[in-house]
């Protein structure tokens, strides 16, 4: 809880910083710069909240042995895991929600400070659409849901919290780089092998929908549902793997 608050405050402070760090802004519009700060807080701090909260919620129970009286009650390990994952997701969604509200407020304040600019001028300036921000935030919830499931899988297997945290972040980084990695590899067998290997890790980059907020792309319902489906399938896969590990774990 303390960490959650700390990160939420950091996110909001970073947003406020965005309002005052305009001199570091190079070549992008002011509103977009603020939005970048908000999106950055959501993804970076969101990933920290996700990994730490999931490890704390799941591995923390194992480490502190608070899981013993719980599992001795008529609760199956699958139910226990599902509860923990839902708890982690709720934490993530609350965090993203707080930052989204803060970002929308920051954008509103800045727009309000620039009353002379008409709508056309704002568009030229690079306006940030509220619906785009909400869409970005929603997709972060789904992206971090996948990360929570992956972290739960490692937490169920881990014998130290450090291992679970490390693996959670490792998959996060690889998942962010996945697209770039297979684009960088050469031709031939190496390429095919790497592409096969990259299939093993979820692609986290595809949830970056900043372009929608900046009016650079149009959102289609089908593509968004596709993304949600992608997230749900991966969350279910790693959730199931975590359940298998937990079922076989000795306490």
């Amino acid at each position, binding site marked *: 809880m303390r960490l959650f608050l700390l990160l939420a405050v950091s996110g909001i402070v970073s947003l406020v910083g965005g309002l005052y760090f305009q001199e570091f802004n190079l070549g992008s519009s002011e509103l977009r710069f603020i939005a970048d700060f908000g999106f950055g807080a959501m993804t970076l701090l969101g990933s920290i909240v996700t990994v730490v909260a999931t490890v704390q919620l799941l591995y923390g129970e194992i480490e502190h042995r*608070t899981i*013993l*009286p719980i*599992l*001795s*009650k*008529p609760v199956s390990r699958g139910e226990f895991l599902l509860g923990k994952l839902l708890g982690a997701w709720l934490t993530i969604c609350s965090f993203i929600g707080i930052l989204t509200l803060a970002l929308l407020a920051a954008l509103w304040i800045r727009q309000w400070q620039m009353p002379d600019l008409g709508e056309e001028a704002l568009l030229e300036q690079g306006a940030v659409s509220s619906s785009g921000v909400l869409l970005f935030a929603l997709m972060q919830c789904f992206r971090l849901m996948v990360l929570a499931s992956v972290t739960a899988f490692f937490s169920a297997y881990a014998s130290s919290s450090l291992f679970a945290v490390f693996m959670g972040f490792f998959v996060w980084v690889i998942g962010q780089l996945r697209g770039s990695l297979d684009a960088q590899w050469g031709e031939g067998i190496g390429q095919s092998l790497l592409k096969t290997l990259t299939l093993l890790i979820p692609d986290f980059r595809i949830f970056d929908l900043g372009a929608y907020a900046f009016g650079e792309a149009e959102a289609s319902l089908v593509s968004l549902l596709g993304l949600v489906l992608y997230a749900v399938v991966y969350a279910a896969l790693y959730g199931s793997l975590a359940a298998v590990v937990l079922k*076989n774990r*000795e*306490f």
Partner: protein
Amino acid sequence: MFGRPAPAELYHFSDRLALKESVQAIELRELTKDFPLMERGRYLRAVDGLTLRIPENSVFGLLGPNGSGKSTTIRMLLGLSEPSRGEIRIFGASPQEAEARRRVGYLPDAPYYHKFLTGRELLRFFGKLLGMSRSELERRAEELLAQFGLADAMDRKLGAYSKGMLQRLGFAQALLGDPDILVLDEPTAGVDPVGAAEVGDFVRGLREQGKTVLLCSHLLTQVQDLCDAVGIMNKGRLLASGSIDELLGVGGDARFAIEGLTGSELGEVARFAQEKGGDLVPLGQNLEDLFRSLVSKDDQRGGEA
């Protein structure tokens, strides 16, 4: 534990206990638990062919030194660990079934509870896991917290509870679902003598209510007073089990102390007993003596092997 001799035929009265016409609350049949070691193909046998029957409405003491397999047995009984071989029955059902676990209340050997909850919140949490209705849960939680002297502290965070308070809260959570079986793992650990005496009274009360209690404790005098029957474990094996009276030799199997002999005369008696195929067994005046004698003898056998 590997390459050890087969369990010696020691004192087993459990079959005689089982002959009694009573419902078995807990049954362990040839229960074995192996933990794999880092070396390929090697394993540690934590529990070795344990067979026990604990009838309903009795207090059974499971005794043994540290590392004897008591905790592993309890964890298997609670469905927290899978047996490598053998089976466990709780009123005829496997502990893997949620309904079987619903009939068991568990007091862990240490207060493994969330420190950020209050006493009342902890009971609410466990009550929800038990599927209790809100009104029933509130009523029962307050009743139990009052019964265990925690009425004033129920809205305080557990981080501020003393060891004794946490232990009492543990009893409250174990009793929350009104279970038929209570598994009490070291209920007197870290509790002062007054608290330990209260635990004794509480266990007697449970028996009066018709509950079955499985008790692990190092306070052998208290166990002797409280338990209807005990099982003594060492290195995963059951060395002896039966009612206190049977184990201590009161009745047909009584053994007698030899007094007034010198060391060499005692040696002659021992040789005589061995010639006749017997052995000189130290007298079990009380549970503590019997426990020590059985465990040290088993350790010697293990060492020789």
